[in-house]
């Protein structure tokens, strides 16, 4: 999650205080890993310094003053940019799994048990996510779906690798010229 963009997105709905923003960020974006108040306030400070939010008002009531923040035009532009420009694809497990497979071939170990163990571990996690999704509100269920589709993609790669392990072994073990 990008906390700055989550805050900008929430402030686009209406000006808000740090305390309320923290509750909304937790509710929508981090229900299982609540964000620290300090992170919300430090992020608001940085956004203010960069001109993406502004202090709208200081409300004096019982207890500490409440600072009401609003999004600026620059903040809206940044939010729009972030929402419309695709994120960089993240490397998932393939690099590590591929390293394992190649190392197994190089060391003469059978690849199939390694692939089977990885598949089993993936399916275990997918079972847990399926269970999480079953009893959850839609936002959590969608997060679980996101994780499930990524794990499934890894698994498909594993299956393809398992199906091509003979070819891969020939390629990996083929003599190569050293420059």
């Amino acid at each position, binding site marked *: 999650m990008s906390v700055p963009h989550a805050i900008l997105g929430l402030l686009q709905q209406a000006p808000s205080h740090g305390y309320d923003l923290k509750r909304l960020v937790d509710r929508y974006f981090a229900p299982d890993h609540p964000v620290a108040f300090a992170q919300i306030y430090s992020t608001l400070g940085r956004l203010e310094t960069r001109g993406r939010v502004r202090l709208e008002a200081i409300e004096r009531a019982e207890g500490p003053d409440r600072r009401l923040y609003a999004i600026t035009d620059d903040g809206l532009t940044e939010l729009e940019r972030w929402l419309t420009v695709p994120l960089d694809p993240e490397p998932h497990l393939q690099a590590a799994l591929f390293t394992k497979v190649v190392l197994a071939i190089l060391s003469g170990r059978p690849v199939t048990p390694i692939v089977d163990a990885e598949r089993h571990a993936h399916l275990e*996690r997918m079972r*847990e996510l399926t269970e999480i999704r079953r009893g959850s509100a839609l936002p959590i269920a969608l997060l679980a779906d996101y994780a499930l589709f990524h794990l499934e993609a890894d698994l498909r790669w594993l299956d393809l690798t398992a199906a091509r392990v003979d070819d891969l072994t020939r390629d990996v073990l083929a003599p190569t010229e050293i420059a």
Partner: protein
Amino acid sequence: MTLIATLPATRTTGAPDHRAPAPAAILTGRGLEKRFGGTEALRGIDFSLSRGEIVAIMGPSGSGKSTLLHCLAGILTPDGGTVEFDGRRIDALGEAERTRLRRTAFGFVFQFGQLVPELTAMENVALPLLLDGVRRTHAEGRAAEWFPRLRLDGLEGRRPGDMSGGQAQRVAVARALVGDPSVLFADEPTGSLDSLAGEHVMELLTAAARSAGASVVIVTHEARVAAYAHREVIVRDGRSSGPVAA
């Protein structure tokens, strides 16, 4: 990865506890062999299914996973090995006895074309009971109970051609469960459905099987479908690997 990180981490208790005593097996296959001409489809596979358990059979195309399901369900007779259901050998039964067993103790869901197009959803669901000699009013009364359980309310009078793929598949699940089978066999049950309809079918299939106390064997090549099972058995070149023992 940040989105995924907001979900609970892998539980240490998530893996099956192999130290726990294994529950009684309701269906076992031992050393199963099956040949089609010169092709060995099964080469000595062992399989075990406990009461109330959901097991996914996975493997590449042509690996023998559907053949395994057909041997376990009494659709095919294995060339070698044994199949035991509820403590009784079924691999050596005659065709008539196996047919009766399939109708009374097993339920089936396939990928395509399993509903009778001329019949309504209600008639399709009631069909196994009617074939078993149950009177129509009683059969349709029992069939009607499955429509809300599979979110099919209001579709009782529709014919398969007037239903979506997901709805038709849920009617097939209802038909498979209407006779209170001990074991539900599902061969690629979501293979012809999109992701959302497939998830819906799997949610309802597993929930309905659980509530009916049925054990389930699912053949699938989809990991997201296999994730509804308690464990998976991998079939490769007619042999099994992975955590087989229940």
